[in-house]
């Protein structure tokens, strides 16, 4: 057990690519926590997807021993928090587990929207914040301008910001020293009943569910019986350890410490981030505040490309849900796509991460239907229904009105692109809440329907600003609007997987873009095919795919029979990947592209 005043707990707040993982790597390396031969880039991002994209999905932690200039050796616990809005709740919990943050800003880029959102989480948690200017050695670095921006936009004193280059190692000793001297030590009462916060949990193939905790009060020992206050379940601790970042067994964890335990817990679902853990026999009086159960906000259908993969998909989804309590699923049947699952996610990134993991780790080919939000249907009989799938939309005569989720979005952008951003937000039914400037960057705050953002907002944002905008959001409220279900008909047959909920004023534009896209994606047949978008029986957009006029091989003699037959066999195999709608065959590729969600 460590004395409280020799502990420092902190997190790193940064935008993607601003060097959070590299800085974490340097801290680990410079303190000799991991032997040089075991170092790999982005030590803490353990999933392939995390490492490839430079994002953190799961919270990770590392315990670093640092001999400071004052001659004492400190225990530094770094919690690497998820950096994305989808995981805002997880971020806020991780922040509550530590007392300070390093705010890392790329000195050549400046503050981004995501940085802002996370700084606010840190400020909410009462953190002491140490600004760090990274990439100071780049020719494009403008430390003074960025310092000014930190002061203007965030309102933090940046005069003693630490200039570093995480890549070269420049300034890292200053960072370590600042953690000890500028961040507060944790508080806690060793003699009080155990009160620990569940920061994160994950499934380990060998150990079962691993639970990460921050001890607030009391002491947690191996073989203690502990109780989760939210779920009420009790467990005997099998293994108690700290992460360096590999597990190192420890006998007890005292106040201010961060560690992990295992306790024969079967499913990650049984552990709720933010829950309070106490002793079964001598519980603490009250739980930590702020617990919230996970609530999926974006839904889509996941279908196997090959119908034979339904069972493997089911098994894969079960396995992933064991490790992710925030991901909800139920079976779904589509005339277009066969058997699959309707899944709920915390946001678009969460959706994409799950889909990529299913495809990579379980080797599945999937079709993802258009992401949709949860609409609230107020029925005439007074009932309120959640609509997760446009295909389930009841007849409008039974519906009194429909509400949709709105978000508060913050967009930071160089001012030359501001006009385009305002236009985009306007198009997407946005309401401007605030517009301010920090240097040459504008910050626009908009009230937007989430449904418009899950469509292709990110892509449009990226393209109109050449990638210079940064964007973040929080869900604000449900509000009524004129929403309708738009169906897509191919050769007069409705294609259920392509139907979507849209605002009436946006239906024509959306319908037009969909039928145009489909016209490109559906191969020509030997007859012409009308492709229509409709609201009820009213067609709002129409394209006609012309008939194939010529498709014949000019020469075919004795030497060509084998090749032609093999081609035919290949086409037959390809036919399995076609879905039949009346007389029309639509390749699954077309669904994938038509429904391609934009990240």
């Amino acid at each position, binding site marked *: 057990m460590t004395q409280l005043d020799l502990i420092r707990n902190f997190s790193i707040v940064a935008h993607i690519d601003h060097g959070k993982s590299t800085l974490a790597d340097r801290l680990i390396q410079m303190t000799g926590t991991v032997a040089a031969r075991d170092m790999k880039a982005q030590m803490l991002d353990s999933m392939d997807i995390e490492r490839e994209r430079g994002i953190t999905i799961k919270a990770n932690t590392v315990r670093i021993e640092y001999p400071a200039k004052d001659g004492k050796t400190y225990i530094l616990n770094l919690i690497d928090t998820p950096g994305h809005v989808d995981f805002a709740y997880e971020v806020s919990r991780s922040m509550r587990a530590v007392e300070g943050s390093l705010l890392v800003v790329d000195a050549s880029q400046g503050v981004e929207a995501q940085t802002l959102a996370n700084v606010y989480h840190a400020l909410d948690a009462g953190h002491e914040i140490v600004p760090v200017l990274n990439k100071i050695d780049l020719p494009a670095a403008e430390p003074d301008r960025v310092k000014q921006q930190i002061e203007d936009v965030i309102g933090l004193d940046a005069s003693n910001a630490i200039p570093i280059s995480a890549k070269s190692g420049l300034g890292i000793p200053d960072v370590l020293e600042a953690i000890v001297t500028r961040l507060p030590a944790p508080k806690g009462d060793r003699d009080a009943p155990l009160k620990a916060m569940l920061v994160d949990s994950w499934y380990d193939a060998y150990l079962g569910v691993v639970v990460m905790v921050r001890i607030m009060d009391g002491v947690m020992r191996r073989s203690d019986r502990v109780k989760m206050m939210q779920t009420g379940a009790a467990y005997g601790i099998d293994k108690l350890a700290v992460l360096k970042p590999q597990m190192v067994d420890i006998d007890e964890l005292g106040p201010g410490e961060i560690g992990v335990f295992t306790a024969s817990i079967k499913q990650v679902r049984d552990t709720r981030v933010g829950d309070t853990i106490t002793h079964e026999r001598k519980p603490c009086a009250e739980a930590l505040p702020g617990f919230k159960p996970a609530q999926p906000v974006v839904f889509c259908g996941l279908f196997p490309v090959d119908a034979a993969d339904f069972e493997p998909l089911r098994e894969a989804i079960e396995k992933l849900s064991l490790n992710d309590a925030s991901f909800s699923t139920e079976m779904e049947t589509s005339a277009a796509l066969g058997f699959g699952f309707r899944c709920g996610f915390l946001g678009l990134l969460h959706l994409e991460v799950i889909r990529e993991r299913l495809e990579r780790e379980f080797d599945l080919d999937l079709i993802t239907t258009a992401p949709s939000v949860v609409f609230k249907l107020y029925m005439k009989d007074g009932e309120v229904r959640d609509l997760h799938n446009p295909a389930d939309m009841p007849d409008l005569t039974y519906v009194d009105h429909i509400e949709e989720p709105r978000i508060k979005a913050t967009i930071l952008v160089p001012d030359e692109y501001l006009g385009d951003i305002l236009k985009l937000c306007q198009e997407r039914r946005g309401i401007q809440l605030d517009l301010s400037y920090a240097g040459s960057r504008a910050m626009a705050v908009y009230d937007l329907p989430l449904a418009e953002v899950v469509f292709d907002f990110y892509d449009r944002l990226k393209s109109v600003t050449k990638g210079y905008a940064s964007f973040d959001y929080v869900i604000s409220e449900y509000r009524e609007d004129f929403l309708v279900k738009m169906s897509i008909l191919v050769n007069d047959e409705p294609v259920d997987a392509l139907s979507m909920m849209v605002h009436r004023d946006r239906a024509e534009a959306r319908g037009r873009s969909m039928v145009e896209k489909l016209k490109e994606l559906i191969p020509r047949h030997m007859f012409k095919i009308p492709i229509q978008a409709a609201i009820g029986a009213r067609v709002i957009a129409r394209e006609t795919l012309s008939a194939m006029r*010529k498709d014949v*091989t*000019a020469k075919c*003699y*004795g*030497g060509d*029979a084998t090749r032609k037959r093999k081609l*035919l066999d290949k086409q037959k195999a390809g*036919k399995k990947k076609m879905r039949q709608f009346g007389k029309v065959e639509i390749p699954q590729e077309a669904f994938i592209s038509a429904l391609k969600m934009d990240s």
Partner: protein
Amino acid sequence: MPVSHTDFGIYLHWPFCQSKCPYCDFNSHVADAVDQKKWASAFEQEISRLADEVGPRLVKSIYFGGGTPSLMHPDTVDRILLAIRRHFSLKNDVEITLEANPTSVEVGRFIGYRDAGVNRVSMGFQALNDVDLRALGRLHTVASALAALESARTVFDRISFDLIYARQHQSLKSWEDELRMALDLGPTHLSLYQLTIEDGTAFAQRFNAGALRGLPGEDLAVDLFNTTQELCDANGLPAYEVSNHARSGQESVHNQIYWRGGDYLGIGPGAHGRITMNGNRFATTSPKAPGAWLASVLGSGSGEEDRECLSAMEWAEEIVLMGLRTAEGIDLSHIQKLTGKKIDLRQLVGLKDLGLLHQEGDQIRTTLQGRLVLNGVIREVAGLLV
């Protein structure tokens, strides 16, 4: 052993050319010196080997293809035909075709070929326009082609020539004029191919680099095809296959063996064969590289590799994909006998309603419009076999 009554032909592949044409994806190679005696021996050896295996057959057709078979010495042709006569019975009206380039050098060998037994030549005219001939990489001119035709007529009764259309920058009008000029030459058989950009050719390279300009779009290609049919019909040369036109009775016996699902030996580098023995249908192949084939024949005594026994379904598919190319079409009862599965004729209604297919009893055939989208029609019909 009784003589098999399946139509039977022999294809011989001469893989050498003087130069490689940029559109051609056939197995052809440019070689300086070819030891023709050695090649003749290899062909003789293969004929003997296959004759022993397939047993007595009545040969309906022999075809020298390539490459450029008119680069063969008449003695080489003579030795090969002698070997075939020694090992097989030939039908009285056997058709013996040799593909020829219309250059004066090759014309000089026509009498030698006739004396060896060749009775039909198929000449690669490709275009009746000198600019386009050069663009197609051909070494002859229109004048030499016409002269070659004149000479050939003094030697052979049956002459066919090939033209390629839907060429770069070719208008409907210019093709019409060219085709009329061709028809005025009074041919009894014509092969008229729309230019296709085949993988692995020089044209494909240029095409992929965006440097092959002026190719017709789909609408023009359709118009070119339809005009070709009209003009040929009007001149008594209807299409009996997608790209082949003949006066009645002048159809190529050899190619009909392919399209009607007959047997054929494929001898020479890269040649394919189909042999039916004891109710099984075998697909044979040979090494493509001339040197490899020659070494294999002279070394191991066989120029064959990877013989495959077709399943009933594969056999039936080949009947469909070859047979639907022709004006006469296919007999579905024959296919049903092969696969043992009943074909649901009602499923053809869609193709019939679109005017792509014609059905009388068990006989189905493509219409002209059906032949334009033949790949789709074949997919649909083959889909019914399962």
